[in-house]
């Protein structure tokens, strides 16, 4: 892969702020990360001093923290990090052309039934797209309710106080090496504010917004759901994300105020050269309910554990996740729930499918602090193995400091059985159709929570994935 194609973050707005070619050129000749790169990013975004300070501090933390020694194999990532461009010149026209998009991705688009115009946008080679219209009309609807749904950069510019009050408070830079990296070099992502008592009926779809920008490699999203507000946010889509980038490290911060209710749905299907290391966390206040619905497909290695910090009495957190590890992929996913107040409840349902020599790991933490009386948590993780070479592991960590708490954990591993296959084949289904049906049934408890079009796409994707799984 040519290094100069590590293009990210097409943000046309930045042209307005005098971002000129020569400067960009300097950037492109300096792979890797140093303090100067961090300063330049902040400068190009015309950020206030406090944000620059925050970035620089985060950079120092990042440099100090060692690579995690747990989870997936990150040894090759260290080399990658020396070579990548942490901030690349935004440009009006993508250099990549439709012809450069690999045939496998094109074929998948076609078989998912995605129109060509949309395919090009998804592949990062398109400029125009009808979703712009859809997006604008939705935007008006939201704006009339006082909802803010902007790029993270605009959030900082236009709502500085609200932004500063919360940014980096849910996931501090020092949380882990990659949250530090993200805090230092973040670019792109969403800023969302749902005012008190507003119940949004239409889901907020990041998809529409992001299509006009390009997804960032170090995206940063901050969502504030005010008292009694309710909303659903959908990120990503099931179509494969084609990217020449080999590293994605996002940070998603969410605050739910008293009695708020929020669901965050992500389905991501990365190209299989990608390291996908994401930190996402919600702070859930009194009587509020947070739901993460997380689907991870593709990538070389994904490490992602959506978290709920239940800090107010009666808060509820729910994490539902599906991971699909195909050949050569490792999905190290799960969830974290921290009970820090009385009568808090949580549930984690995690389902993974491993195919070929794919590996899926469930890694979860349930922590109950002293004083979180009557806290209740239930964890259920189920793994399905398609082939004899597929692998799954489970690492449930349970830390309980409060005697008056109830924590349950259940784990199952099943393998697609010969009897199951024979049964379906004896009804006329081919082995691939039979496999796909078994997998769809396995993930159904979570897939049924998805918006219909996502569930349909996910099912079709699984059918495609099952092709060639029979050997």
């Amino acid at each position: 892969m040519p290094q100069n194609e590590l293009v990210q973050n097409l943000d046309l707005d930045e042209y307005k702020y005098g971002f000129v070619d020569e400067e960009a050129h300097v950037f492109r000749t300096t792979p890797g990360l140093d303090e100067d790169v961090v300063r330049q990013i902040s400068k190009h975004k015309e950020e206030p001093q406090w944000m620059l300070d925050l970035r620089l501090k985060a950079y120092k933390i990042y440099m100090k923290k060692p690579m995690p020694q747990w989870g997936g194999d990150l040894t090759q990532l260290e080399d990658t990090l020396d070579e990548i461009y942490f901030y690349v010149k935004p440009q009006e026209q993508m250099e990549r052309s439709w012809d450069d998009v690999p045939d496998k991705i094109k074929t998948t688009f076609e078989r998912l039934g995605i129109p060509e115009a949309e395919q090009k946008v998804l592949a990062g080679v398109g400029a125009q797209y009808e979703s712009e219209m859809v997006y604008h009309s939705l935007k008006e609807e939201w704006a009339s309710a006082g909802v803010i749904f902007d790029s993270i950069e605009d959030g900082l510019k236009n709502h500085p106080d609200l932004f500063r009050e919360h940014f980096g408070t849910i996931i501090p830079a020092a949380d882990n090496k990659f949250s530090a990296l993200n805090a230092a070099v973040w670019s792109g992502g969403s800023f969302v504010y749902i005012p008190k008592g507003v119940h949004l009926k239409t889901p907020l779809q990041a998809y529409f917004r992001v299509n006009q920008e390009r997804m960032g490699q170090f995206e940063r999203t901050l969502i504030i759901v005010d008292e009694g507000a309710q909303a659903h946010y959908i990120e990503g889509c099931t179509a494969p994300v084609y990217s020449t980038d080999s590293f994605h490290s996002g940070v998603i911060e969410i605050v739910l105020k008293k009695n708020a209710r929020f669901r965050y749905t992500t389905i991501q299907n990365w190209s299989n050269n990608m390291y996908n290391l994401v930190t996402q966390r919600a702070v859930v206040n009194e009587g509020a309910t947070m739901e993460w619905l997380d689907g991870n497909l593709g990538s070389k290695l994904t490490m992602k554990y959506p978290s709920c910090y239940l800090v107010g009495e009666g808060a509820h957190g729910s994490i539902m996740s599906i991971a699909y590890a195909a050949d050569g992929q490792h999905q190290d996913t799960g969830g974290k729930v921290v009970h820090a107040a009385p009568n808090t409840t949580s549930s984690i349902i995690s389902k993974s499918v491993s195919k070929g020599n794919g590996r899926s790991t469930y890694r979860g933490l349930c922590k109950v602090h002293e004083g979180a009386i009557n806290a209740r948590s239930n964890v259920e993780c189920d793994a399905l193995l398609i082939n004899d070479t597929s692998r799954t592991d489970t690492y449930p960590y349970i830390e309980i400091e409060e005697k008056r708490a109830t924590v349950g954990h259940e784990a199952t591993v099943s393998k697609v059985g010969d009897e199951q296959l024979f049964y379906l084949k004896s009804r006329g289904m081919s082995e691939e159709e039979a496999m796909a049906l078994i997998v769809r049934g396995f993930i159904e408890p979570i897939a049924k929570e998805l918006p219909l079009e996502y569930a349909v796409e996910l099912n079709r994707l699984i059918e495609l994935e099952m092709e060639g799984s029979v050997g």
Partner: protein
Amino acid sequence: MSDTPILRISDLRAKVADEDLPILKGVDLELGRGDIHAIMGPNGSGKSTLAKVLAGHPGYEVTGGEVTYRGDSILDLEPDERSLAGIFLAFQYPVEIPGVSIANFLRTALQARLQGDEELDLFDFQDELIDRLELLDMETSFAERPVNDGFSGGEKKRNEILQMAVLRPTLALMDETDSGLDIDALKIVSNGVNKLREENPDMTVLLITHYQRLLDYIQPDAVHVMVDGKIVRSGGPEVALELEDQGYSDWKEEVVTA
């Protein structure tokens, strides 16, 4: 007989796939169009193995003999190819498919019967499914339940009959469909089979059973007794009655002394 038989089994021999354990030791059998034959035999006689081998179960290996279906050998066909050709096996132990509704399962099975890019019409499918449920006096909500998941023994067998009704086989192999059923469930299941036969008298049925009582509800044209991997006696319905009086012990001794 001028008609090509639906099923002809000649000197069929089979063993467990990964072991040197012969089970079928030379089975001969012939079923014409619309015939109902019963195979009876003690536990371990190989009668269930015969049903599985006919459906192409990968756990068994055919070591000799021939099976033709409508004149063509089927031994090289995959289980799905045999199904598409019109052979149906009602399982003794139906398998659970969690998260997949019976309706979805049947839709997938019918879709598999269509050629190329042809898509199953969902409205036609709904009509067909309701029609089949009504024929068998089943609640429509039954089809919304996940396949065999948490089903009672009787419900599993009814699900087999429903699948048979939807897939409309030419040849139905019924592997101990009566085992584990109380008398009410047995009646429901055998009524279902009889209704399907009334609807399509050409449907050929091979009933495999341990007990004579199923034959009180489904009248066979012929009864075969299988012992130690071979058919040791064939005759009319009277054979079943003899068995009821005498049990299988006489037959076993005959095989041992033969």
